[in-house]
């Protein structure tokens, strides 16, 4: 399954994809477009990606976390394109026989994705639009 999609995310389908009869818990994380960022109003976000590289980076992270947590099964999907407030940009499911590993693996997954996967977002609000993270970097 690809890690990137241009469609609305179906978290329930993601859960169904990973759950095994030996799993006693799953943790689902969804990142959602919120109506504010750094004190400014946000109306929508455009997500862009270096698609083939983003797919590869996601795969590397999934494999690395599954090797650290051998009992955990992971599924992840990141949406691209224009999203409005309330829509989900990412869903991560970590299923496990025990809850501790599910929480840890899910959180590690979102932390790692935010560090290295080549995906960008342009926030749009009443004051204009801006690529997040670029301004003031120099």
């Amino acid at each position: 399954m690809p890690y990137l999609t241009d469609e609305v995310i179906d978290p329930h389908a993601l859960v169904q994809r990973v759950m095994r009869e030996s799993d006693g818990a799953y943790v689902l994380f969804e990142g959602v477009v919120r109506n504010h960022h750094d004190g400014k109003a946000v109306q929508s976000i455009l997500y862009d990606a270096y698609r083939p590289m983003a797919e590869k980076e996601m795969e590397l992270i999934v494999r690395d976390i599954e090797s650290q947590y051998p009992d955990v099964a992971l599924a992840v999907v990141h949406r691209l394109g224009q999203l409005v407030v309330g829509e989900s940009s990412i869903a991560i499911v970590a299923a496990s026989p025990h809850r501790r590993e599910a929480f840890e693996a899910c959180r590690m997954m979102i932390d790692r994705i935010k560090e290295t996967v080549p995906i960008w977002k342009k926030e749009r609000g009443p004051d204009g639009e801006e690529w997040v993270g670029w301004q003031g970097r120099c």
Partner: protein
Amino acid sequence: MRTMKVRLLFFAVLRDIAGADARELALSEGTTARDVWQSLRAQYAKLTDYTQPPMIAINETYAAPETVLRDGDELAFIPPVAGG
């Protein structure tokens, strides 16, 4: 001195600045990723202040700025990522 062809991809803010998704570069042998960044800085005023390049990907893998490019490489500068 021979030249190499390198495909340069633009994403996010860099696509907006360059006004293009990609460009084909003809580079002399020995050119590094950092060298390409310096030439972009010379071309686009909005990049002038960025003396250090952002993260660099060569053929869809992160690479160091000093990496010497090879003929046929696909090069991309990766602005600060903001996925999730």
